[in-house]
């Protein structure tokens, strides 16, 4: 069965996997309300419905989902890599940074 993923906004640099995915698997990504699909090969095992990078992302660059920033990359992320708390920093509610 082909793995599928959803890209919510054309500006997004992450995609949401539908179901779980294994390292090396190819995922067919659909951008919402668009016909064309793109294929991304997963570089990590990804838990059910979690995110992976649709493009290469430089450290410090915004992570874009719903067409808006949901944080910034804490390290360089390659296309197909798992994207979650290990490589995204939130820009909001960071009392820990303010306290330093």
């Amino acid at each position: 069965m082909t793995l599928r993923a959803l890209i919510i906004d054309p500006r997004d640099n992450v995609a949401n996997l539908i179901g779980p995915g294994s390292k090396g698997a190819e995922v067919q990504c659909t951008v919402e309300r668009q016909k064309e699909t793109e294929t991304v090969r997963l570089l990590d095992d990804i838990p059910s419905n979690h995110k992976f990078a649709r493009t290469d992302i430089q450290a410090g660059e915004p992570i874009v989902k719903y067409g808006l920033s949901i944080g910034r990359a804490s390290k360089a992320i390659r296309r197909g890599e798992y994207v979650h708390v290990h490589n995204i920093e939130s820009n909001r509610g960071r009392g820990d940074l303010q306290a330093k």
Partner: protein
Amino acid sequence: MRDFFYGYPRPDGQVGIRNHVLMLSGTLYANPTCERVAHMVQNTIPIVHPLGRCQIAPDLAQTFRTLVGHGNNPNAGAVIVVDHFKEQGCTADDIAHEVAKSGKPVEVVNIRREGGAIEALAVATRLAVEMNRKINMQQRERTGLNKLIYGFNCGTSDVTSGLAHNRCVGWVCDRVIEAGGRALGAEVTEMMGGEELIRARAKTPEVAAKLLGMIERMEKSILACGVDLRGSQPTGDNIAGGLSTIEEKSLGAMQKWGSKPIVGAVDYAFPIGEESGLWLMDTPGHGGESITGIAASGSQVMSFSTGGGHTINHPLMITMRLTGNRESWELMKDTMEVDVSDMFEGASLDEAGERLFNEVLDLCDGKMSKAEALREFNAFAINRCGPSV
């Protein structure tokens, strides 16, 4: 598309979807009386809480306003307010005085005045029996959706939330508003990161400024704690569900807002205005506190959308739970009403949204929520803005 429901008109113009006698506790020490009466007498709902004493003035005012709001909620056909002695600023007499303005029957039981807990229980029970026999003669009447305040909220979110069930809630908001009704959301913590969207959606710059002010206050109160918000928001279950940051959670949560303009914003537990459209309330992300504020504003029915599954329900505002996560549905379907997980297998937003819409209107007509059938009440929680003193 249906644009009506069958409800109970109240003297103040609101329309209830239930016709309960409400046992409203003024202070924590009156809780057992309220709970016992509700156990004994059919169709009688207890509102109990740990507050009403030793609160600083603005905090006590918020408790008072929330309790009055529940007395005024049109799902209550009659109200019995109970307290144990005399609490300045939050007496049963004061609460009853405000609720009586709605025109519905209101009674007060003061435990001390009645001669102690046993006598007070007898008096309150007798009142509840009489009130039930009286209000249960009332018939449901056909009512336009202009009388509906559709509450919505979400919790235990995961990545399916922003993709599936929250969008269905937004779809229902749009239909309710198109029929002249009001939709009421909240959860200011889950607006952090969505400021751009709020500026674009607010009907006036004043509404946008009020909402942005709420977000700023919320973020300042978090920063003042000197910690990283992550783990609290997004919660541990959000992170396990694939949500990485509060911004991602917010943008997913805001899918519940549908596509209509935000016509107004109110502080916690205040009534909203008459204008049809999307309204928002200043509440934290805490589910119980958030939906309690919405119920105090007069909302009759609430959709609670959840990724991980949830048991949340409000005792008076009929609460239905939905999910787009198939695994959560399978695990939690005893306490949830609607499954929209087929959206990941090709079901359209229109199909899934209409399924939710029909369930909401059926609940308005009297269909029992699963929480009602189970007589399970778990989410009455008054938000606090001060310490206990």
